[in-house]
């Protein structure tokens, strides 16, 4: 495997990930391990938040800031202790993936909770005037995390199509128009993050799974997001819980470096979608289920990683959970990540020793 240490991998992609290889990495092969984003919050953080919201004197703004900083430091460290190569802070400053951004984007208003399922509600925001960029959304989160982390930091951002689709749009009256306006704002935000040092950005578009026929809108959004960004910014797109065949091969043309998918939950039934030779992005493969509290044993995760090697070569395979882990008990989330990192290292060793022949796996297919 030829490796260019200045950040280009064997395929010569400037958005490649070889630069994320830890200096003490034990194997020649490198299957980048990372997370999708959210992670269970420490119980005390929820407690402090509720007390802060109920009474600003009982828990002051400064005390709340100290608490989220502590949580961010704690979970970033927890990711590193689990052995991940690229980490984040588990989104300790965020409560919900649309609401967090809608509270920071001009033009949004909250009109009350709406049902998602059963007795679970979310504050679905309404766009009541043209959206605008007023101040950085994630700069503080990124700078703090990057400062406390020993490993490189990835920044997950809810994508413009999901932000648009999961909002009430009272203004734009067009499927794409709101998403495009939001994509321009995300471009501004990402440019700021890049200026602050971020090089690994993940755009989360779960809404695309629901309405795959809008893949062209998401493609145009991504073009707007990458406009003017340096080539060495690694852009990942995460889409979960959908029928991937509906958006392939269209995603082959997206301006991304990595496509991150949830496949462990469906026992890799959709894996053959990515066996197409035209799929040239790196594949971010979900290898632990984010919905089940059963911790997958290392051997099972190794088998899942080998599934990924039936469709892409090792230098194109990133290893991650299916999705954000925030609904799991924290000890379960940690155990899954620890087993995942261990499984990746084991598979790398097997690749190094020749016990796993990736060419043969790909020739056989899923």
């Amino acid at each position: 495997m030829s490796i260019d240490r200045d950040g280009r991998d064997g395929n010569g992609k400037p958005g490649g990930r070889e630069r994320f290889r830890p200096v003490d990495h034990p194997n020649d092969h490198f299957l980048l391990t990372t997370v999708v984003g959210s992670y269970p919050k420490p119980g005390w953080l929820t407690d402090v938040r509720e007390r802060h919201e109920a009474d600003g004197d009982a828990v002051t703004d400064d005390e709340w800031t100290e608490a989220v900083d502590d949580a961010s430091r704690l979970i970033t460290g927890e990711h590193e202790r689990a052995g991940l190569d690229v980490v984040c802070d588990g989104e300790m400053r965020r409560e919900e993936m649309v609401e967090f951004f809608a509270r920071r984007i001009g033009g949004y208003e909250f009109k009350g909770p709406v049902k998602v399922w059963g007795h679970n509600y979310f504050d679905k925001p309404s766009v009541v005037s043209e959206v605008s960029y007023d101040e950085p959304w994630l700069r503080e989160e990124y700078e703090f995390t990057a400062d406390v982390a020993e490993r490189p930091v990835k920044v997950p951002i809810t994508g413009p199509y999901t932000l648009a689709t999961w909002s009430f749009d009272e203004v734009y009256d067009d499927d794409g128009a709101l998403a495009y306006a939001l994509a321009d704002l995300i471009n501004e935000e990402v440019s700021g993050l890049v200026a602050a040092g971020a090089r690994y950005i993940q755009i989360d578009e779960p809404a695309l799974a629901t309405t795959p026929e809008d893949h062209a809108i998401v493609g145009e959004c991504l073009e707007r997001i990458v406009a003017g960004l340096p080539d060495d910014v690694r852009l990942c797109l995460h889409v979960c819980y959908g029928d991937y065949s509906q958006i392939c091969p269209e995603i082959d043309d997206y301006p991304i470096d990595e496509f991150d998918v949830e496949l462990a939950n469906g026992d890799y039934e959709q894996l053959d979608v990515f066996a197409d030779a035209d799929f040239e992005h790196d594949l971010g493969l979900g290898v632990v289920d984010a919905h089940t509290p059963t911790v997958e044993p290392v051997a099972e995760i190794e088998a899942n990683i080998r599934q990924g090697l039936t469709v892409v070569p090792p230098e194109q395979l990133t290893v991650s959970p299916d999705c954000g882990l925030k609904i799991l008990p924290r000890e379960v989330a940690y155990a899954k990540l620890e087993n995942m990192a261990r499984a990746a290292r084991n598979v790398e060793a097997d690749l190094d020793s020749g016990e796993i022949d990736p060419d043969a796996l790909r020739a056989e297919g899923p």
Partner: protein
Amino acid sequence: MEHVATTAGLFPLPDAQRERLVNLTGRGTGGLIDGDESADVAAAYDAARERLVATQREAGLDRVVEGHARWDDMLAHPLCVHENVRAGDVVRYYDNNNFYREPVITGPLTEDGDLAADLSAAARLTDRLQAVVPGPYSLTDLARDEQYGSFAALLNGIADFLAGEVAAFPDAVETVFVLEPSLVTSPPADDAHERVRDALDAVNDAIDADVVVHTYWGALGEKLHAHLLDTDVAALGYDLVSAHEECVYLVQEYGTADSVALGVVDGQNTRVEAPETVADRLSWFRESVPVSDFETVYAAPNTELFYLPVRAFEDKLGALAAGVETVRAEVSE
């Protein structure tokens, strides 16, 4: 021509009961409705019903629905509380960011009176009662079958079940809205159209009230629309919010039932229509179709209303009633 301001039901839970129920049952699937609620939970739903009926009365609607606060699983509710149905995985509800417990049918669907009990409670609160039920095709589409063995047998079984439920409705029910979004979103194959027609007729024949088959999220296919015109239902419903041109085309080309239901308020957007907008949409439809006189025009939101926050939901009911009032004044001039 009579104009009737009404809704397709499935309202958002009032704030007080939403919070009360979370405290009583938690947020997991174990806390959801199973037809065997505790006294405290039942009391919360009774309070929700009273509030929702009062909201409709205050808004000035001409038909009042029960509100369906208990329908945790939206249109799948009548199955989810049935003794021969198992709650399956939590799955996506149509193309929305909403989810329901997929009902897995494990035994015969005998009528159980769940809907009638709620309607009887509502009948004590209003004398303008309208029932809402899922259509047999949509309920078939939302369920998983381990009992009937074929689509045809399942559709018949569900139609018989719904007919049994509807037959038990209290006499106070004046109108029954039968919601059939699946006829648009995942339409039956051509060779199943007659079965769907017969299933709807089975429900229609079970009650001596005006039955309105309402569709939304687009327009019906032309052939399927023609088969629905062969039923004996009083009215067909059209979604003028998402597909006004396609719906008008159907009526222009093929006619419609003696009465129509028109979705003229967006059930999935917080932007509250002005009463004039409601009136304009109703007038536009009337002027666009070659029908000189409908018996009744039911003016309604296009969809269920649980997608909205409570305040927007309430404002929309007011706008709808005011818009219909405007049209009544125009028509009588």
